[in-house]
């Protein structure tokens, strides 16, 4: 599945958060949206599954196409099952490990007989199964921070999304947990479209990755990660990578 963002702008009230963004997201080519805090990374991700509209007084222009279909023509719950999201802060629902992962499939009407297999598959895909196999009934809040973030990834995968959006998924984790999550994401990106927002260029160096550098709501430049990170064309990107702009 391919997502095309065409000349897309987004406003919170009178504040323009995204300005004429053009992007293409294809499976097998994970997209890393790179930029400093406040550059519009989170807004861009939230626009891709229309969570941004929950903010209330918002306005948009341009189009976001999911396999050619304008996402505004899709029912938001249906769209969000196709475009899953993992947030910066791992947020386990106040339920057991099992119920957290089963939450999305239950909403989608997956029957009980299929649920166990779906939960196990998702936890395995998120590289969490060996650690929680005997603790599925335990409250998810008892897991460590890194485990909670992998649980969030498993929970998103359990719905079977075609695209996975990750908003700073390693921002609140220790270096070891962050590296595990990054490796997991590159593995996942082989099978499905992955978009990751981050202010840290280090996780962007995975294989096949593309980078879009966002600054004040505008895509400054985009292209293969190796190219952009090694030889940025724009001085803003250069300054950001050198730590002179933040």
């Amino acid at each position, binding site marked *: 599945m391919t997502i095309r963002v065409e000349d897309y702008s987004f406003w919170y009230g009178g504040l323009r958060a995204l300005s004429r963004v053009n992007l293409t997201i294809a499976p097998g080519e994970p997209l890393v949206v790179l930029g400093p805090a406040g550059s519009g990374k989170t807004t861009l991700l939230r626009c891709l*599954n229309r*969570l941004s509209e*929950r903010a*209330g007084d918002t306005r948009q222009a341009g189009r976001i196409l999911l396999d050619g279909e304008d996402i505004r023509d899709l029912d*938001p*719950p*249906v769209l*969000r*099952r196709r475009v*899953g*999201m993992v*947030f910066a*802060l791992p*947020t386990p*629902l*106040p*339920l057991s490990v099992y119920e957290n992962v089963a*939450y*999305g499939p239950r*909403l*989608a009407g997956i029957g009980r007989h299929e649920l166990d297999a779906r939960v196990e598959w998702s936890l395995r895909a998120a590289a969490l199964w060996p650690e929680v196999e005997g603790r599925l009934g335990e*409250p998810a*809040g008892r897991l460590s921070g890194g485990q909670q973030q992998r649980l*969030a990834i498993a*929970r*998103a995968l359990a*719905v079977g999304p075609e695209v996975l959006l990750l908003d700073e998924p390693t921002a609140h984790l220790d270096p070891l947990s962050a590296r595990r999550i990054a490796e997991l994401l590159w593995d996942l990106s082989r099978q499905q479209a992955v978009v990751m927002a981050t202010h840290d260029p280090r996780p962007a160096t995975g294989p096949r990755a593309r980078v879009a550098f966002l600054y004040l709501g505008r895509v400054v430049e985009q292209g293969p990660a190796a190219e952009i990170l090694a030889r940025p064309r724009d001085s803003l990107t250069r300054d950001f990578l050198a730590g002179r702009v933040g």
Partner: protein
Amino acid sequence: MRGDRLAAVLLWGAALLTLGVLLALVGHVLARGLPVVDREFLMARPSSMGRAGGIFPTVVGTVALAALAVAVAAPLGVGTAIYLAEYTRRGRLVEMIRFATDSLAGVPSILFGLFGFLLFVVRLGLGWSVLSGGLTLAVMILPTIIRTAEEAIRAVPESYREVSYALGGTTGQTVVRVVLPSALPGILTGILLGVGRSAGETAAVIFTAGTALRLPRSLLDPARSMSVHFFILAREGISPDNAYGTAAVLVLAITAVNLTAYWLLQRFQARRH
């Protein structure tokens, strides 16, 4: 440092004073009332206007009035709170509803009694009855339930809702599966306040349920609540002992309801977390 110590002493003092007043009040009522409370006092019908016999009809009246009030007000109040918190954006209409609810919460209960008398007893022809009394109490406790439920719902972390929506949840699914279970302790607190206020209300009940001392057999029968019974026995000087006995039963009953709800809540939360 000295300021901190002074503040700590003052805060401890305030807390102890509050606890002391509560204990003194409950202790006084129980000390005076418990000696007359026995099985017969609870199960027998009163005689000689309440000077002798028990308080059974007033126990039934109180339970019926409070149960009816909560049965009507709880779904209505929680539903309104869900609507205000989850389905509307903060706007003029919502602010007006909130202002009206706040204002209603401050209206003296005797005015609710008058309103209930004019609407339910006279206009709708329900007469002095459990139904009139229960509905009046429902109107009276509605603002409390709405505000406490709304606050409890708003206190549910936004991140829970975001997770549910991001997983394809509709507003209804998110409310039922995430918001309400998380807000339940607060909602239950509001309902319990409503139970306590209904069971202890006097003015609104005298106007609408009447003061008849016989056992109510249907919703259209008049009834006397324990608090009204206590008020009449004490004011008319019929039997101060029985008045205190009634008050002791009322205090213990409300405490029992609160403790049961607290216990259920603990069990529910232990299962969830």
